[in-house]
């Protein structure tokens, strides 16, 4: 066929190769796919190195790794879940899974297949949950009245928590890591103590204590902010 050495080594399917030759664009395909493959390999090596450092307890390398993989995770999840809020929740679930199972990464293997396996598993789990919820729940435009008295039927916008959402977010940022994780898992994700313990690796007792302290700190912080 008279291919060059570069063409022989390039992993372009034969049909595509022939079509490209007709168009006279073989070199362009060769070079761009080679560059992409090389960039992917380089990226994988970097992620693998960061993960190895993370397994040894290097928080900075771990932070770089997690921040770097988020776009890939968003791409994987958004292929199957259209709702951006739900997709972001799934991305966070994947990050928690990666954290819990980081000991299962074998440094002698590429990092990306390890990550995508976990991401796909969690996405499928999330889809199952969404379908199950869809079968049981009915969407309503307005919340039904709970009690006859008007003051018990405030709209969410009037609710102090909603009104102070940003303030609460800022107050959450002031908490130590353990307390923040406890609030995130138990209150925001509404996990049970057992689930939160399995996800975070903290004991149930430690989670209870962290939650108690977090609520106390938040009360104090919010009171100060309200007075201001």
């Amino acid at each position, binding site marked *: 066929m008279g291919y060059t050495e570069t063409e022989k080594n390039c992993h372009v399917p034969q049909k595509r190769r022939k079509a490209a030759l007709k168009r006279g664009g073989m070199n362009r395909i060769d070079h761009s796919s080679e560059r992409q493959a090389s960039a992917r390999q380089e990226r994988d090596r970097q992620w693998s190195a960061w993960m190895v450092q993370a397994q040894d307890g290097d928080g900075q390398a771990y932070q770089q790794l997690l921040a770097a993989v988020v776009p890939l995770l968003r791409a994987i999840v958004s292929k199957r879940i259209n709702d951006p809020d739900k997709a972001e929740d799934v991305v966070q679930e994947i990050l928690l899974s990666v954290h819990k199972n980081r000991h299962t990464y074998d440094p002698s293997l590429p990092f990306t297949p390890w990550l995508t*396996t976990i991401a796909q598993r969690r996405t499928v789990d999330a889809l199952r949950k969404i379908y199950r919820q869809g079968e049981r729940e009915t969407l309503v435009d307005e919340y039904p009245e709970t009690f006859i008295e008007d003051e018990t039927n405030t709209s969410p916008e009037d609710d102090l928590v909603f009104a102070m959402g940003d303030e609460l977010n800022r107050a959450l940022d002031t908490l130590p890591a353990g307390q923040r994780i406890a609030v995130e898992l138990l209150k925001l994700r509404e996990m049970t103590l057992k689930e939160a313990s399995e996800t975070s690796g903290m004991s149930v007792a430690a989670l209870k204590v962290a939650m108690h302290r977090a609520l106390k700190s938040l009360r104090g912080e919010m009171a100060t902010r309200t007075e201001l």
Partner: protein
Amino acid sequence: MTYTTENLIASLTQDLKPVQRLASPGKRLLGWVALALPVSLVLGALVEQQSFAIVLGAREPFELAFERLSNGRSLVELAAILLTALTAGYAALATAQPGRSQKAWLLPVLPFAAWLALVTESCFTLYQQIGPDQFSFAPHWTCYPSVVATGAAPALVMVLLLKRGMLTSPTVTVALATLAASALGAVGLRLFHPPDATALLLMWQLIATVTFLGLAALASSYWTRRAASA
């Protein structure tokens, strides 16, 4: 109010502790065989010794084992069983580690097919010898203690090993683990159990192993919960 992904990353990376890396499936397989096989053989021999004392009163289980080890066909069957245990065990452990090839489930196909073929041939020979009136698939309760004794350790140790990994394809992993634990337990049965390992015995072996895996998984969750709340 949302807890942003950036906040979550900051929480997860703060005060990060080192972790012990999961050993390769090959090393964990060696550990499984080294721990579970001797226990399975010892328990199997002890139970059979009791049965011999009660039922037969004459021969020792080790005499039977030596007899079978010197028989060519028994050795081929034993090799197929052991190979099924090793390949299915490796595949179960590999599929419980993300990033490893999920095609590992193909490994035990040939050894398991060979084992089934030998069992089928045994059944056919037995059927020809004793005739349709005597041949029965009814449960033999006297065999059950041997099945339990030989199958418990492989199943329990396998569950502990799988708990350290991550089940990304639970159905495949559990099926492979069941096959592996059944096969390793069958080594003891093939050596010490007086009747030949027929399809019936294999069926009971699989049922027993599924039971063990279920019980071991429940016990493991219980201990994890206890450890988490301690």
